[in-house]
Each structure stands twice: as C-alpha cells, then as structure tokens.
C-alpha cells in the first residue's frame, strides 16, 4: 500500500466528515421534532453507497479510498449511539428504541438495495 493511497484515505475521510456535518445541518430537526433524522439520512445514504461499492467489482486501492476512507467516515456509529442514549435519558424510550430499530432495518435494506444495483453494473 503506497503512501499516496493513505494520504488519499485521510483526505477523503476528512471530506466524508464534512459531508456528514453538512447534510446533518440541512436535515437536522426539520422533518421530525424528536427523531435525529440528520444522522439517519447520513447513515442510510452511506449504507446504500457502501453496499453499491461492495456490489461492484471495485476492490484494492479504490475500495480502500472510497469505502474505508470517504463512506466509512461519512457514516457514523458513535453519533447514532449518543443520540439514542440522550433521547432515552430524556424519558423518550420509545423514540430511542425506534431510532435503533429504524437504523438497523432501513440500513440493511439500503445496503442490500445498493449492492443489488452495484451487481447490475
């Protein structure tokens, strides 16, 4: 693995984090007052994209750059967990459970859909 690829992983990872920040700002709290839809939108779109990449025959450096670098950094597990825990702490257990269940069910569906489309290429 060359140094250039790792520099690329860092740059694309930084861009992924910025894209997540931007989309979260755009979506945040606008459509639903309780569910953190910004993080959900980021995670579902990212699961779709990574599924798509996994479905294609793209591997090696390109897979590392865009899969592990850009898309991996774009989606986030930690924020999903933090927001769930804070909703639960605020006494809204049903919404906290819904945030986890929706993330898993829709995340798997998005990744499977992306992969099916990627395999068509």
């Amino acid at each position, binding site marked *: *693995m060359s140094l250039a690829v*790792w520099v690329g*992983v*860092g*740059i*694309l*990872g*930084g*861009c*992924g*984090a*910025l894209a*997540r*920040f931007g989309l979260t*700002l*755009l979506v*945040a*709290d*606008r459509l639903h007052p309780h569910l953190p839809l910004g993080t959900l939108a980021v*995670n579902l779109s*990212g*699961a779709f*994209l*990574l*599924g798509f990449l*996994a479905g294609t025959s793209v591997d090696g450096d390109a897979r*590392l750059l865009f*899969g*592990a*670098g850009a*898309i*991996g*950094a*774009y*989606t*986030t*597990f*930690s*924020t*999903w*967990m*933090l927001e*769930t*825990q804070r909703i639960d702490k605020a006494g809204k257990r049903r919404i906290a459970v819904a945030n*986890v269940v929706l*993330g*898993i069910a829709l*995340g*798997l569906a*998005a*990744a*499977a859909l992306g*992969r099916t489309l990627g395999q068509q290429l």
Partner: protein
Amino acid sequence: MHPNGSAANSLPAVIDRRELGAIFLGGAVGALLRAGLAEAFPAGAADWPWATFLVNIAGAALLGWWFTALPHSSYRRPLLTTGFCGALTTFSTVQVELLEMIDAGRIGLACLYLAVSVAAGLAGVHAATAAARRAEAT
C-alpha cells in the same frame, strides 16, 4: 439548531472556516486509524469483525466523554466529536458486514454482532458521559 444557523430554512449565515477545518482534520485522522486497523486485522464473512467492533465501541465511549467534557467554545469540540469520533466509527461498514454474514449463512453471528455492538455502544456512551459528569463535578 446549530449556533451559526439563522432562520429555519436557510443555510448557516456565517460558515466558520476554522470549525470546518477542525472537522476535516479530525475526520482525516479518524478515517486513517479505522482504515489502518481494518487493513491490519481483516475479517472474513464468517469472522467477528474485531477492527470495526473495537473502533465503534471505543469511538462511542470517547464521543460520550468529549461531548460532555469539552466546552462549546473550543475548536477541540468539532475536531474530536464530529470529526474524529464521527469518522473513526462507521455505520455503513457494519451494514455491509451484516449482509456478508447473512450471505455466508451465519445468521446467529450477524444477530450477535449487531446486538453486542448496539448494547456495548450504548453502555459505552452512558458510562463515559457519567464519568465526564463526575470529573466535572469534582
């Protein structure tokens, strides 16, 4: 609502370039650490994905700590929370790993991996938040 946001339907009036720089830098380091661990400890479809699991649980706990401990005025906050922890942890990789486990017929492993990740992630956030509150109080 983000502190820089103006009216509900417009983009933030002032883009804070230093905040964006902090998120980029933290994101770059988090992504490199995660990608490096994933390359060093690759997991097959029938294996427990230790690299992803460890970065996700550690990242969730660190986020709980920094989210509570760091002041809003500090650029270390976007650097370490949105940037580093956000990029160190990954949701999309977990979903694709689960699909591969299901394909390999390892339904039990997929269920266990998912349940343990969510339970440990929530427990990590909870414990780190409580620890940061205690540290603040003393």
